[in-house]
Structure formats: structure tokens, C-alpha cells
């Protein structure tokens, strides 16, 4: 594949040695040559005080890169826990840490002003509060940061979702990120940020190029400073499948070649997108985000359905339904009905089809699938009604034959063999070479004691499927009733040869031998 420019680099800081920090900075500096013209650097630290000196060191590399490359833009996101304390203490944090951080960007702010442009270097704090964080003080801190153009965002997880109820806090956050977990663990934050990006990008693909889901997600690297490992994507990070170790002194050109090679080695990016979307859908997200997820879940449901994985399809549709606005739910109900039908959950299928009726009742296939649910439940009367309704709506040729066969089979089930023959003969007329038609006709004629006709049809059935043991057994029954015991025995023997476990053939053959020696 083509060489990919990195959109995002994530660095998870730890208490690394000074030497390791220098190596990290050197690698980052070299990696900047491979980032997109507008890119993002996420630096994740345990807390503000411990992380800031390292961030300032990394920032030197950033400013140096941007000074050299006037066409490049970099957003630096510093992710850390919320400082604890009251408003005065928060203010101290701002004065002591953020103000100093901001100072280095002044040359870029001036450059932007002179060129009437947005600054090429943006510092964006991303604060992950804990359940003990004082919400009012945090809101004050966000307000102060915002007024200094350090546009702050929040990261909320299960332990802190309740903070989203505070409108004052949310109003001051530039953006709110959501993630699973409940202790703002650094690797969980990185995964969530990656995943959120994957979701947005997948959503854009769905609008523009839905067939391109197998392509890799936006290019990103994750570096864990504690051990120097580099991961090519969130999925590899979760599975601990690293590309290289920066402390083993690799050359960045080699690292990037390995990176590009990774996506040529059969990564299942579509499955990863699907997993990410499904996992995110369990979070208590705001309304705008859930709509996007609902569309994605529906899309992945259809992909699972096409791949005949109806269990997963049903799971995706169920989740999609939970997040979908009511006015867009009907197609999801219909698809869910299909998945239930294909997984043997006929009552649930009928319930889902019922909710899709208003939109689909003019479609013959709607009645056909509803009929199938009843048929599989053994309710041939209801099934017959639905199939007849489908038949009246001018179905496509292939489906017409299927509907006629099911109609014939329903009539057989209800004991109306004459009517079964009418439907099945029509099916034969429409498409002669379908085994099921002859099999069902054989049954109908047998029941009406027209053994010659039954044998005639069953012979065609075994011509079409020479391995059908049950049709040979049926032939045996018809020959027996006609009095041709040798042929009957031969047919039962043939059936048993194909399927030694076919009890009906074995029992009839034994009875025949007992009776006639």
C-alpha cells in the first residue's frame, strides 16, 4: 500500500530516565517528518505536575519542527488527571504550569496574527477528572484555560460520566471524550481517543465510500515511554503487538517501513471498526453521537447479514435500535426480523416484522418473510395467509417459485393435498428443475393415493438430487403401496445406503422382509 502520513501520535509518559526521554524526543522529532501537514500529538501523563516537565521537553521538538516547516500545523493535546483542590488551588496550577506552557506558543500566535491565520501550534489540555474531582473548581479551571486560548476538553468514563450532567462544566469544555473503564487509566484513555477517531472516520466512509471499510483507519502511532514500544494502531496496542522498541535505537525510516508493511500483512480493519463501534455503543453518550453510532451499527449489521453471520447481525441491529431516533427505526426492525428468522427466533422475528409493517407492507417479501416465521413455527394456517398475500403482489421470478413451494408445503401440512398440487404444479411450470417441488408433489400424490403420479415426481426428485435418501424412501413407500415389493425393497435399500441412519427406511424395509420373507 502507499506510504501513509501519520495523523496522530500518542505518547504515554511514565517515570522514564532522562536518557530515555531524550531518545523519545529524538524519535518524535524524526517522526514529525512523517506526519500529515495538519496533525495531532497526544501526550498522556498521570498528573499535571509530574508530566509537565516532560511535556515541555517534547514541546521543544515540536516548536523546532514547526519553525523549520512553515506549512505544517500541529495540535498538541496534553492529557492528564484533574488537579485536586478548590478554585484557588486550580488557579495556582494554571499560573504555575499552563501559563508557562502557553508562553512558548506566543511566537506562533504572533505569526498567525501577522498572517491572519489560525496558529499553527495549538495547545489543547484534555483533562480526565476522577470521581472525587470538585466539579465547580474544575469548571473554573476550564474557564480560565479557555480565556487563555488553551481550549480544554474533558475525558469522562464510567466513574465520571455523572459530570456530564453539569451544564456549566460542559459549556466550558471544547469537546467531551467518552470512554469505558472507571479509573482514567492511561492506556484506556488512549484507546478511547483512537476509537472515537475511528468512529468518526468510519462514519465519513459510510457517507462517501461505504465499500471502503476494509481500509485501515486514520494513521496513528502509539508509543509507551515506559518500555519504548511502538504500536501501529489501537487494535495492535490492545493485543500488545508492537512494531519496534525505540530504546533499541531503530531508525525512523525503518520504523515507518515496518509501519506501512503492517497494514499489508492482512489486518482485518473492517472487523476492528465493527468491534469499536459495538463497544462504544454501550457508553452513555450524548444524543448527537448516538445517532452516528446507530447508523454504523446498522451498516455493520448488514455486513454480518451478508456474511450469513445472523447472530452478530442481530446483536448489531439490537444495539442500533437502542440508539436510533424513533423515526429511523423501521428499517432496523425489518433487518432485525430477518436476523431473528435466520437464528430460529420466530416469535421475536414476528414482533420485529410487526414493527416494520407500516413501511414494508407493500413489499411482497415482507409477507414472505413473515410467512416463513409462521411456517417454521408450524402454524401453517397463518403462514398460508402470508404466502398468499406475497403471491398477490407480483414477486420476482426466483421468489415466486419459493413462495409456491412453501404454499404447497403449507397445504400439505394442512391436509389440503389438491390445493397443494395446484400450487406445486404451478411452481413446476415456473421453474422445472427444483427438487423440492417434486419432493412435495410426491407427498401430495401419495396422500391422494395416486402412486403412479407420486412415483413419477419422486423419480425427477432423485434425478435432480441422486443423494436424497428421503426421496428414495418415499419412492419405496409408493412402490409398496402399488404392490411392487421388489422395487420398494430396492428403493429402501438405496435410501439406507445413502443414509444408514434413516429410521423410516430401515423400519419399512424390515417390515417388508418380515411380511414377504
Amino acid at each position, binding site marked *: 500500500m502507499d506510504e501513509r*502520513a501519520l495523523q496522530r501520535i500518542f505518547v504515554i509518559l511514565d517515570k522514564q530516565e532522562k536518557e530515555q526521554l531524550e531518545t523519545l524526543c529524538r524519535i518524535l522529532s524524526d517522526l514529525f517528518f512523517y506526519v500529515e501537514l495538519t496533525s495531532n500529538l497526544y501526550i498522556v501523563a498521570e498528573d499535571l505536575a509530574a508530566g509537565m516537565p516532560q511535556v515541555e521537553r517534547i514541546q521543544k521538538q515540536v516548536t523546532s519542527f514547526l519553525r523549520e516547516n512553515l506549512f505544517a500545523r500541529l495540535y498538541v493535546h496534553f492529557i492528564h488527571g484533574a488537579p485536586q483542590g478548590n478554585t484557588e488551588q486550580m488557579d495556582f496550577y494554571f499560573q504555575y504550569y499552563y501559563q508557562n506552557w502557553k508562553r512558548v506558543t506566543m511566537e506562533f500566535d504572533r505569526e498567525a496574527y501577522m498572517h491572519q491565520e489560525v496558529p499553527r501550534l495549538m495547545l489543547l489540555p484534555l483533562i480526565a477528572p476522577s470521581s472525587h474531582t470538585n466539579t465547580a473548581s474544575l469548571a473554573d479551571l476550564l474557564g480560565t484555560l479557555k480565556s487563555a486560548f488553551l481550549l480544554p476538553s474533558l475525558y469522562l468514563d464510567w466513574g465520571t460520566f455523572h459530570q456530564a450532567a453539569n451544564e456549566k462544566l460542559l459549556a466550558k469544555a471544547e469537546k467531551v471524550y467518552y470512554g469505558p473503564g472507571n479509573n482514567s487509566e492511561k492506556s484506556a484513555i488512549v484507546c478511547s481517543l483512537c476509537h472515537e477517531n475511528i468512529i468518526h472516520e468510519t462514519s465519513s466512509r459510510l457517507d462517501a465510500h461505504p465499500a471502503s471499510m476494509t481500509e485501515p483507519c486514520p494513521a496513528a502511532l502509539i508509543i509507551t515511554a515506559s518500555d519504548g514500544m511502538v504500536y501501529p494502531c489501537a487494535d495492535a496496542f490492545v493485543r500488545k503487538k508492537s512494531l519496534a522498541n525505540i530504546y533499541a535505537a531503530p531508525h525512523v525510516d525503518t520504523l515507518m517501513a515496518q509501519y506501512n508493511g503492517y497494514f499489508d500483512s492482512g489486518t482485518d480493519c473492517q472487523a476492528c471498526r465493527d468491534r469499536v463501534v459495538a463497544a462504544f455503543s454501550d457508553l452513555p453518550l450524548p444524543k448527537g453521537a448516538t445517532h452516528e453510532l446507530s447508523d454504523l451499527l446498522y451498516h455493520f449489521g448488514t455486513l454480518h447479514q451478508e456474511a450469513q453471520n445472523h447472530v452478530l447481525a442481530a446483536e448489531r441491529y439490537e444495539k442500533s435500535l437502542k440508539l436510533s431516533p424513533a423515526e429511523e427505526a423501521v428499517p432496523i426492525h425489518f433487518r432485525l426480523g430477518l436476523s431473528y428468522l435466520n437464528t430460529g427466533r420466530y416469535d421475536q422475528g414476528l414482533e420485529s416484522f410487526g414493527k416494520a409493517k407500516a413501511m414494508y407492507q407493500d413489499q411482497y417479501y415482507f409477507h414472505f418473510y413473515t410467512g416463513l416465521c409462521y411456517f417454521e413455527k408450524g402454524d401453517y394456517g397463518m403462514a398460508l395467509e402470508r404466502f398468499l398475500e406475497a403471491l398477490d403482489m407480483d414477486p420476482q421470478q426466483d421468489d415466486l417459485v419459493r413462495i409456491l413451494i412453501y404454499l404447497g408445503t403449507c397445504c400439505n401440512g394442512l391436509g389440503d393435498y389438491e390445493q397443494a398440487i395446484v400450487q406445486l404444479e404451478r411452481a413446476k411450470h415456473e421453474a422445472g428443475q427444483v427438487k423440492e417441488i417434486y419432493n412435495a408433489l410426491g407427498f401430495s400424490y401419495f396422500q391422494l393415493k395416486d402412486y403412479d403420479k407420486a412415483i413419477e415426481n419422486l423419480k425427477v426428485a432423485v434425478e435432480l438430487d441422486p443423494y436424497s435418501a428421503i426421496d428414495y424412501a418415499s419412492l419405496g413407500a409408493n412402490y409398496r403401496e402399488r404392490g411392487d415389493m421388489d422395487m420398494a425393497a430396492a428403493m429402501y435399500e438405496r435410501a439406507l445406503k445413502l443414509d444408514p441412519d434413516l429410521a423410516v427406511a430401515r423400519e419399512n424395509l424390515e417390515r417388508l422382509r418380515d411380511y414377504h420373507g
Partner: protein
Amino acid sequence: MNVLLIEINPFAPVSPPISLGYIAAFLKSKGFGVKILTLGEDASISPAGLQKLITSFRPALVGFSAYQRTMLYVIGLARFIKSIDSGIKVAIGGPQATFMPSDGFAQLPDIDYVSRSAGEQTLLCVARAVEQGRPFSGLSGVSYKNDGGIVQDTEELEGFSDLDQYPSPYLSDVFDYSRMGEAIMLTSRGCPHHCIYCYTPCAFKHKVMFHSIDRVLEEMTWIRKKGVKRFWFADPNISHKRSRIEELLDGIVKLDLEAQMWLQTRADLVDLEMMKKMKRAGVRTIAFGLESASERVTPKIDKHLSIQKVVEAIRLAQSQDIEVELFTMFGLPNETFEDAMKTLAFVKENNVKIMGNTNSQQMQIYFGTPMARHYKDYHIRPLNTERPPYISIGCQYETDHMSTEDIGKVQNLWRAHSLDRGRRIVS
């Protein structure tokens, strides 16, 4: 010899750079190898990728489209390209270049030429000079720097008045159709009017030049065959000639192109019959320039268009179920805060959705416009006196009637009423 043409705007999605497309097709027809590089917000290229492109394509000349907002990036890329190969010549053209003052050009060390005339002929002239190894000899249509770094201007170069003489960028296949969602069309160039804030009439000396309708339809048919359905007509006034727009719309219907079109024109250049034809041909959206809805302001901008005419044009379009966009500005000469509010109220009263191009913006004062030349006469006070001379006043001004705070307030009010947080498509 190879020529690389670059358009960069990190804040806009990639769309076919039509002006560069024309230049590329023209140079290609004269035997040059040409590549267009569009660097938008969704362009996936790194400095390493750029370096690879430069070293593999080996252009002898690189041309940039330059706009006020992209100057910094153009400067940065020019420096980067020269750092790879200092022998590569770099030219800039487009709105920021045509009327850029010489002292501005003098402060651009990595730019060798500034195009002042028709892009196609000018860049051909430069390309031929570079190819012959005498990059600063026999030039026309450009400014360049001599050995002492002194800016030298050359004679103007006339472009073709019959636009069909330029090869079509679409029919020459200079664009990549694989991810093209929308084709940008330019069926005419120039504008005869005298609006004081606008670059176009000055750049084209108040003349209008046209493509034949046959050529436009041939292009559209080709683009449709390539699978692109949406067309965005960049002509300043597509209905400048009534017979011509009718011929175009009839042709589109006759060819059954099933196109979806966006176009713009003056509100006094439409009527009901034309709107019906537009609707039939597939026009989804029409944009009119209102600028201001205050009777105190409109006479000062020399647009010579009554507000009532705009109301009528909106009604006509809406009667045909064509979406309307209105271009408006604030911070205009003589405009007070209350005047600016009238414009916002006008847009809402006339049921025009405040989104996309209808998001208002502060008037920008660009090089070459009457406003830039005579800003003092319009009671404009530039705020940044230290700006580099290759950057025009732009939006860094206040007026006798509106302070920076007032302008900021108007901007925030528009944003508050916007359906898409104020994201404008055309600047």
C-alpha cells in the same frame, strides 16, 4: 520539463482546483509534464511524502495558487522545495499575487516570480524561460527579482478573449476523478461591475470572457461519464448573458445529464422563466450577493443592486423549490451595528437558511480592490500596521462606524444563528 502546480488550504476539503487545472491543461498541450497537488484538510501527505514527490517528479518549476489565508503555507512549502533543490524555480499566482506590492514580493526570498497576468500564458512564458536555462529572460506578465534582489516588473500579457482557446482541464484529464465528488466549472471569467470590495472586476479589467456552450456541454457530458453528478459553477454571474444561460440550461435538459448544480449570479439577472429552466436542468442551489440589507450601506459599495431586487430573486427561486444562498458581509463602509443587524434579520425574514455560504463574514480588504487602494476614503482604519507587506489589510480593520468589538459582536450573532456553526464554503 516538469511543472508542479500546488494548491494548499488546510481548512477546506479537497476540490478540483479549476484555475490550476486550466494552467495544467495549457502547459500539457505545449509539451510540458504537469502534475497538480491539492493539499486540503483531508490530504494525506507528510513532509517525507512531499520530498519523495519532489525528488521523483523533479519539477523545474513549481507554481502555487496564493490567497491571503494561505500565504504562510505557500512561503513554507516554497522554502521546503528550495531546501530539496535550490535550482527549482517557484512562481505564485492567483488573487494574492496579481496586485501584490513589490515590497511584499521582495520579502519572499523563496519565490522567484509573481504572476500578474493571465495564468496560462504567464506560466507558459516562465516555463519556457526556465526550460531554456535563462529563467529571467524574455518574460512577460510577471514580476521577478534580479540578481540584486530588486523586483523587476515586465509587460502585461493578454489572455485569450475566447476561452475555448484554452484546452479543457476536464477533457485533458488533468484531474483525478476517482474521489471527485463535485466538478468545478468556469464557463466565463471576469465581471463588468465595480463593487468596491471585489478583486474579480479589477483583475479582468471589467471585461467578461466566455466559453462556448458547446464546449461547456462537452465537458459536462464527459464529467458525467466519469461518474460525477454534482457541478459547482464558479462564474461570478452565470446569467450575465440571458441567451447564453438559456442555451446552456436547454442543452443540459436535452442531453439528459441528470446533473445537480450550484450556481451564483446577480439578483437582477434572473426572472421566472429562467428559474423554471434552471429547475428543469437540475439547479439545486442558487447564490445571490446581497452584501448588506441596509439602504444606508448599499449605495456606498457600488454594487448598484436594490434590496428589493434581491427579495424578488429569492421569491422566484423559492417558488421553484431551488435552495437560496445569500452572500453577505459586515464591517462595510458606513455600516453601523444596527445596519449589520438588518442584514441578519433580512436573511431570516426571507427564509434563507443560515448555513454554508449564507454564513456571513467580515468584509476582507484584498490587494487590487478599490477598497484596498482608497481605504482611507472609506473611513477604514487598519489595525495591524506591522503586517508583512505581502499580506493585505484583510479583516484587520475597524471603521468609523464599527469598532473591533462591534464587529466581533456581529460575528458572534451570525454564528449563534447559524445551523452549521458558521462554516462557510466560499471565501
